[in-house]
């Protein structure tokens, strides 16, 4: 090697230079290095322990510290700055179709039982869907229905109203509004009094009252 950049190999560099060298070697190494391993890469006659000690002092209190790991040395992030190595990622995701529909049914039909939701959606409700909505604090348990089995009902929460910018559940657009907005076809649908699931509700005067509260303003 006659590289002019390497004259240092043949004279012992001063301690400051040795410190620079140890710093670069440790920085670039893919693993912690022991003093002898460092020595093997340094110019002959270098005092590696001395250079390591000087380097450790220099990094004291810095954002990165020179750590002794057993017999080996490595740079590591200062322990008090560990939180910088964590990134808070807030991922925004759209609610699933099942969750949206379930939420909509609860909002429009509240208080409504699980069986009624399934009846209206025409498919069984997975446990996760209600759990997710409960966890989001968008629905909560209402009073139990006074019917066989005394099933629990679900209603929407103030947090729901808040998220959707509604002053009250009454502000939800009615079916006529949905139809006017083109979201429903013009065919007269089995309205709130007619369709499946509403039958049960109709049998329950309490529900009918609730519905009236919600929609017939």
């Amino acid at each position, binding site marked *: 090697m006659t590289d002019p950049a390497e004259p240092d190999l043949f004279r012992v560099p001063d301690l400051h230079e040795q410190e620079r060298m140890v710093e670069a070697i440790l920085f670039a190494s893919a*693993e912690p290095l022991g003093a002898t391993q460092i020595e093997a890469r340094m110019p002959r006659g270098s005092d590696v322990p001395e250079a390591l000690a000087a380097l450790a002092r220099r990094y004291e209190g810095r954002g990165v510290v020179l750590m002794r790991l057993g017999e080996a040395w490595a740079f590591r992030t200062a322990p008090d700055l560990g939180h910088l190595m964590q990134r808070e*990622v*807030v991922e925004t*995701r759209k*609610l699933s179709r099942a969750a*949206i529909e379930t939420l909509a049914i609860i909002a429009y039909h509240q208080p409504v039982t699980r069986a009624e939701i399934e009846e209206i959606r*025409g498919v069984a409700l997975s446990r996760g869907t209600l759990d997710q909505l409960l966890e989001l604090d968008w629905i909560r348990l209402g009073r139990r229905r006074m019917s066989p089995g005394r099933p629990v009902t679900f209603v929407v929460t103030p947090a729901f109203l808040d998220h959707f910018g*509604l002053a009250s559940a009454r502000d939800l657009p009615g079916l006529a509004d949905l139809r006017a907005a083109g*979201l429903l076809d013009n065919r007269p*649908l089995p309205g709130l009094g007619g369709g499946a699931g509403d039958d049960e509700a109709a049998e329950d005067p309490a529900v009918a009252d609730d519905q009236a509260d919600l929609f017939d303003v």
Partner: protein
Amino acid sequence: MRGPHSPNCGRSGMAERAPSLFAEDRPAPERALIVDIEGFEGPLDLLLNLARTQKVDLRRLSILALAEQYLAFIEGIRAHRIELAADYLVMAAWLAYLKSRLLLPPDPAEEGPSSDEIAAHLAFQLERLEAMRQAAAALMARNRLGRDIFARGIPEAVESRRTLRWTAGLLDLMQGYARVRSRDAFRPYAFDRRDVCTMENALERMRAVLGTQIGWSRLEDFLPEEWRGDPRRRRSATAAHFAAALELTRQGRIGLRQSAPFAPIEIGPGAPR
């Protein structure tokens, strides 16, 4: 490089290559009779090498002399009956033309660029290629990552703590509800079992009753109590029981009679076999 070289100045090659971004990928076509003249990368590379032999600043290059050098070089190669890539020949023809123009006094009637302008452009191309080669060398001589300078050997991964935030807008909600309601309207017709009385049910019921039934009675009296109220349920039960009665009649277990169209249907003892 051995490819179908494009003549640099006569630009005919450009249009040919245009359809494909990466034209040289094609298998070497037969027309490319390639001779690697001492490793030159095309006519411009060869010209640049010849220009260097003039040992002058490229800006003061004698294009006339260069054209002569090139033509002599090509002649020499051809004397050895070595076939040349078309590019070299196109360049030779072009330089021969340029040379003739440079030797003649300018013709004021002639349109287009003067021979001096063309020669100057060729000189510019050679100078630019030379400059790019030097720039490339300077670039490669820089301290390079992974060779002269190094990155952190033990990078510390940044740990991501993920928080999910679920969102939905009022429109989603409305659309969701509309979807549910429309689905009702468009749902392919399927029996709603709750309101459907099956013939199997009716058969089972009637068989059970047959033992005790002796006289004639109306079909509707056979309907179970809970199926008589709601008209929809009543219709379904009536149909099921009628079908069951037909089946039992066929088997000779019961008899059926009706006094007039639309009169009540009556069930009684079957005709003995």
